[in-house]
């Protein structure tokens, strides 16, 4: 077993040492700074106030300096051999550019503003300082290169805050024709945020002992942070709308027998035991509480119309493409066309509906035009998802059916379509969620006024009638301008101050509309995702 002694240290690493602990503390410090920066940016932490008994800016400066010193100390300690690491000869070009960018900003800013050298001087300063930072990152061994320039940056930022060079009252007027200034309120949190990211990156590399493992650590910290931020962003966004919208939604909320409005279900008149006026009323002068019922009903009909149009067309096209057509020029053209339709901006669909549909349906905005426009938008998504679902049906199924002498269409109908159903259903539900929230296309084709009286709640089924003149069937409800939730919200935003005359609390009304819209759309998504899980579980368990 010669050599076992040497390989000992390599294969199995020692337990956590104090140096690892230092690097871990530095990562933690970066996390704290990141959180503080975000809080300060959204004014949850006041820059002029104090935090834990210290001026906020001073605290940020002190923490940044400490982090910077820790990062440099770790790198220097590793270079001098006090800390056991495994660095590469160089930190690499990417790290070099990463370190150069903030130093370019610092160099340019200091040269052009602090030293007053103007734009040209700023550019020179930026290049020189950035170049030095780049060289300092790339040329020394990795442990020094990936800590020294970034650590210095952190220390510099920290000292600038600590000494009050940039304090809470700092303002930099950009001197542009359309005036704009960079204020401390913006600069300090943003500078802290980026410093924290750089500090976290450098400390994570140190924690991993540099080298391949260090870079792995550094990258993972950033990737995890990014994923976490996206989830947090989603959560905050939804929570914010809910918190803002619930008061408006529940205005006049009543629970109890006989409190709700009368409604007819299957010919039986029922009084609902719950009253939520916001979703059960329209807008009327005499109403105690105003609501958005017409818009909700409009959205429902809109979605139904779009689905009725797009799903058969889309599934039919997918059947043809996967089952009948040979792969060739024709299928390629259809594929390009559907993908092109999928990425066409929604406002272009609106323009198309405006130019093509409106003149053909009574020369005015109408529910029908909106349905068809949204149907066209939904179509490519149905084609794409149905096709994917059908392609994933194994050929053995088709062969087995064909081997029994079953004709092609019967095979499709009884083998392919049922097997592809889960994928199609999921795709359609998610697609519906998407179009239900679309505003731009219905803006030009369907939408009516800002406030719709409850009496104008669209009643498609009740409006069918036969006429003597062509086209013999008429449905005035389909041909009327109708509101839908997304449009209603848009109209409420653009209506601005004038809103106050119709609604007592316009802001609550808007937020409640946004909440209802969000709930409607997200419930489609929730159902879609749940359906997918359901089908997947059923597949794996049988």
């Amino acid at each position, binding site marked *: *077993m010669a050599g076992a002694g040497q*390989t000992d240290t390599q294969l*199995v*690493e020692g337990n956590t040492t104090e140096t690892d602990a230092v690097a871990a503390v530095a990562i933690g410090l970066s996390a704290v700074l990141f959180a503080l920066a975000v809080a300060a940016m959204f004014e949850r932490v006041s820059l002029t106030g104090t935090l834990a008994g210290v001026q906020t800016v001073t605290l940020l400066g002190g923490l940044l300096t400490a982090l910077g010193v820790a990062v440099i100390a770790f790198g220097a300690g590793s270079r001098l051999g006090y800390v056991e690491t495994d660095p590469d*000869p160089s930190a690499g*070009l990417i790290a070099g550019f990463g370190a150069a960018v903030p130093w370019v900003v610092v160099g340019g800013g200091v040269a052009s503003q602090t030293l007053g050298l103007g734009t040209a001087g700023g550019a020179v300063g930026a290049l020189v300082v950035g170049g030095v930072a780049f060289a300092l990152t790339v040329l020394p061994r990795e442990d020094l290169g990936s800590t020294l320039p970034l650590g210095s940056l952190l220390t510099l930022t920290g000292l600038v805050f600590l000494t009050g060079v940039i304090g809470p009252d700092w303002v930099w007027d950009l001197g542009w024709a359309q005036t704009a200034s960079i204020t401390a309120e913006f600069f300090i949190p943003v500078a802290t945020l980026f410093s924290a990211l750089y500090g976290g990156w450098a400390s994570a590399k140190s924690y991993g002992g540099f080298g391949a493992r260090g870079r792995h650590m550094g990258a993972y910290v950033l990737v995890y942070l990014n994923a976490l931020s996206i989830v947090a962003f989603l959560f905050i966004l939804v929570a914010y709308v809910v918190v803002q919208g619930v008061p408006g939604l529940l205005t006049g909320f009543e629970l109890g027998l006989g409190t709700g409005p009368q409604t007819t279900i299957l010919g039986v008149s029922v009084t609902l035991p719950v009253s939520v006026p916001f979703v059960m009323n329209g807008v009327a002068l005499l109403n105690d509480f105003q609501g958005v019922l017409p818009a909700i009903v409009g959205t429902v009909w809109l979605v139904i119309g779009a689905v009725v149009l797009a799903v058969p067309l889309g599934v039919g096209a997918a059947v043809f493409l996967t089952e009948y057509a040979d792969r060739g020029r024709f299928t390629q053209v259809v594929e390009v066309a559907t993908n092109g339709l999928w990425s066409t901006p929604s406002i272009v669909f609106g323009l198309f509906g405006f130019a093509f549909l409106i003149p053909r349906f009574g020369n005015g905005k109408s529910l029908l035009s909106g349905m068809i426009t949204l149907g066209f938008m939904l179509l490519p998504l149905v084609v794409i998802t149905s096709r994917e679902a059908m392609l994933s049906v194994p050929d053995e199924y088709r062969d087995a059916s064909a081997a029994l002498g079953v004709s092609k269409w019967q095979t499709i109908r009884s083998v392919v379509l049922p097997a592809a159903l889960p994928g199609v259903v999921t795709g359609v539900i998610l697609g519906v969620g998407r179009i239900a929230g679309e505003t731009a296309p219905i803006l030009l084709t369907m939408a009516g006024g800002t406030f719709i009286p409850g009496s104008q709640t669209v009643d498609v089924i009740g409006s069918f009638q036969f006429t003597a003149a062509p086209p013999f069937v008429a449905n005035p409800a389909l041909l009327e301008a109708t509101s839908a939730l997304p449009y209603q919200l848009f109209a409420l935003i653009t209506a601005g101050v004038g809103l106050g005359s119709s609604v007592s609390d316009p802001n609550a009304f808007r937020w409640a509309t946004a909440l209802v819209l969000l709930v409607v759309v997200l419930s489609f998504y929730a159902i879609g995702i749940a359906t997918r899980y359901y089908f997947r579980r059923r597949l794996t368990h049988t």
Partner: protein
Amino acid sequence: MSENTTKQTQTESAATDSDQPLTTTAGETAERTQSEWTEYDFRGEAKMTVDDLDVYYGDDHALKGVSMEIPEQSVTALIGPSGCGKSTYLRCLNRMNDRVSSARIDGSVELGGQEIYQDGVNLVELRKRVGMVFQSPNPFPKSIRENIAYGPKKHGDLDTGLLARLLNRSDADERDELVERCLRDAALWDEVSDRLDDNALGLSGGQQQRLCIARCLSVDPEVILMDEPASALDPIATAKIEDLIDDLAEEYTVVIVTHNMQQAARISDQTAVFLTGGELVEYGDTDQVFENPHSERVEDYITGKFG
């Protein structure tokens, strides 16, 4: 039983004293229990020692209490019917099973006397020392040269990047030497020396597999694990790979999974037979296992009565 006890002492001394002469167990006929297979003596030192290794995938108990010593600089073949856990076992030896989130592994695997299933094991270092060749050739979509240089580059042993070239410290010469040496060792050099910059995906299946072996050699491993390396190849390419394995055993410890018993008999020094259920049923000198197995089940398997 007394004979077994003697053998055990011998093995223990073998583990401490590398000069222990080769002993064989040929002629021993008694049906032995599984735990005794670890006590088998081979000519070399144990490179890897596996002790009571269990693997579970979720509720599925894929490997049951496997213990064996893998002697160095020899070829160890793992054979058995499909689903017997031989590939699972192989992937435990360089911890590739860590990639499977549902896998749970109990027991001990030592490489050169060091436990690889313990906290603080550096997987990078482990996999450098225990290389692997997969069932179907999996060259990277890069040039032949870059395929070979990939490992050393990633470990920081070779630097031919833009920066290194600018600073005039590029290791291009070392790289080219390494590429030639590995390709020669993998018996591929003559076929590809004039097109090292071509994409490796353009090679034939057999060439791709030898390229993967060359790639594995580039980081100078101690153990090479091969998971049915010839199963996707035609007979001529298979013969080339088999010759190659024979040569490799002079320098490396080779562990090879195969479902082809003739192949195992041809190339291996010792053979382990896994049977359905994830049990190691017999492990011994290849000639002995094939000609005179202890276990009836193994005999049935080898003579083709089942499996």
